[in-house]
């Protein structure tokens, strides 16, 4: 049974009653055992519905979904014993203390009395909640509630943990704590399915990321693979004072450089920018020889180069080329593509 994927959806379709479109529209992907799988998408993209199907709370209209090889509809009860859900909104039992939340959850899952007491204490300790064991849920902060929900989910030793927007509304400390816990759980072999629209979080935590929109899977790869798949997304931004040649001529020369896909002239350098008497960046054989431009010069131009290689590799050639045409570089910065660029390029900028 352990050779079965942790989760698998095949041609999954979900249409809610009264809805004109499918919330999930032929989605297929597989979550391997032991990985952190990030499910990304804009609001309303179908992430929550997909996770709802996998966690047996939403009935699929078509296709199939399996968790640890078990069908989520036919074997719903068995599936529930294999998974745990940490929702975005607090759903702890307000009539019970923090520790009793853990204890009763374990009891629902058939964990024996001795083991659930022992495990509750261990998990409270691990989540830094020892002194909150007797606290009532209403007295907890957002971060504490979330930690209690993670601890609760772990009480019955799930094979797959579903984390829904784990750091929404948390302060940076709580966020980092949750991130550390995700990594630790992964090291312990727990499969984690993470839904988020926080790119930074997805990039940091996920082994693989699936981006969904309009109920369809747009792409699925490692964060690194996704970033590499987007050509022209790395950028080199350079501020120069043109010498003998005009801005357009410089652009025409830069575009000839190997690796440069596109060059865009940006608005003029901001007045609060780099002082114009700053020494030019010494870089490589083509040292900039032009004398410093006079202070307060307003003929600086800013160019952004879209590149399809490592942006750092182009620093030398760019500075050399500009220097050889008497253009003085006063500022240069590199832009690495991020998952956000992939996300926006795939799902667009429209508000949902």
């Amino acid at each position, binding site marked *: *049974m*352990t050779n079965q994927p942790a989760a698998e959806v095949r041609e999954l379709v979900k249409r*809610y009653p009264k809805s004109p479109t499918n919330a999930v529209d032929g989605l297929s992907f597989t979550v391997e055992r032991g990985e952190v799988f990030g499910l990304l998408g804009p609001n309303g993209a179908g992430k929550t*519905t997909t996770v*709802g199907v996998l*966690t*047996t*709370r*939403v*009935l699929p209209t078509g296709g199939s979904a399996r968790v640890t*090889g078990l069908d989520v509809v036919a*074997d*719903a*009860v*068995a599936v*529930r*014993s294999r*998974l*745990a*859900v940490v*929702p975005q*909104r*607090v*759903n*702890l*039992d*307000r*009539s*019970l203390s923090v520790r*009793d939340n853990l204890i*009763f*959850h374990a*009891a*629902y*899952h*058939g964990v024996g009395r001795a083991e659930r007491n022992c495990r509750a204490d261990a998990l409270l300790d691990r989540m830094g909640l020892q002194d909150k064991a007797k606290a009532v849920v209403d007295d907890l902060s957002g971060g504490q509630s979330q930690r209690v929900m993670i601890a*609760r989910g772990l009480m019955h030793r799930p094979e797959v943990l579903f984390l829904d927007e784990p750091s929404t509304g948390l302060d940076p400390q709580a966020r980092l704590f949750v991130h550390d816990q995700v990594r630790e759980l992964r090291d312990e072999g727990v499969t984690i399915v993470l839904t988020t629209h926080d790119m930074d979080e997805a990039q940091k935590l996920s082994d693989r990321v699936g981006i969904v929109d309009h109920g369809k899977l747009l792409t699925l790869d490692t964060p690194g693979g996704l970033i590499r798949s987007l050509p022209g997304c790395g950028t080199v931004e350079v501020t120069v004072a043109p010498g003998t040649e005009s801005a357009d001529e410089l652009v025409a020369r830069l575009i000839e450089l190997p690796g440069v896909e596109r060059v865009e002239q940006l608005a003029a350098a901001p007045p609060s920018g780099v002082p114009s008497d700053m020494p030019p960046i010494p870089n490589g054989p083509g040292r900039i020889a032009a004398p410093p431009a006079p202070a307060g010069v307003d003929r600086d131009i800013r160019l952004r180069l879209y590149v399809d290689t490592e942006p750092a590799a182009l620093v030398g050639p760019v500075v050399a080329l500009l220097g050889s045409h008497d253009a003085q570089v006063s500022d240069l910065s590199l832009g690495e593509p991020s998952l956000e660029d992939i996300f926006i390029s795939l799902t667009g900028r429209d508000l949902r």
Partner: protein
Amino acid sequence: MTITGNGQLVERTTSAGPWRAFLAVLGRDIFVTGKELPAFLAQVLVQPFFFLLVFVVVLGRGGFVSPDYGSIMLPGLLAMNAMFAALQAVAFPLVFEFSWSREIEDRLLAPMPIPLVAVEKIAYASLRGLVASVLMVPIGMLMIDTHWPASGLGPALLMVVLGALLGATMGMVIGTAVPPRRINILFAVIFTPLMFTGSVQYPWHSLTDLRWFQVISALNPLTYVSEGVRAALVPQVPHLPLWLCIVVAAAAVVVLALLGIRGFLRRALD
């Protein structure tokens, strides 16, 4: 199902698991009730106590009601207490658990079929109704002078159990049908009419000269519980036949349970 290294676990969670989970959830509800015992007692005993105090002791003292009225009203109050304690134990928590607190989610993710979660709610609420009704007996006995035949205790208990089940299943229907923003109208539109057309405060046969109200009372399933308890405990008062009370109450329980569980599934699963 493949049984492998962890076959033990698979076996447990798929066969014995659901009932074990059922008992654990029931255990949680009883544990919470134990923690909130004074609140529970106040919730189920204060209202019927005042009913008896005003209608029997206060009004009886001035001769506004006959001295026998207490023995007519107490069985009605036992029925009402069973039904309303159970109804409130399901309806209110359910409205909030499905919307605001979402507490129900942890139960819906327990390894048990979803209808069993609903059945547990009904079972727990019925227990609560039964206890509320039984606790009313000594209070009533102290406040009024009445005598019950020993042979009637068994049928009376049966009717009280049916009354509790009736309240619990009705609570399931209401709790899954009423959105939280409408909860305040429950009292005015549902509870009050139910409470005052259920033959709690009057024997159904006494309404022959008020036909329209008798018909309305006959439509309220609580009438059959009140009349059934009366038939068992004070048989000298004219009452509906016990068998009719049992049949109608049981049929209402079945219908409401099916409707309630259907409503529960609709709310629990998308």
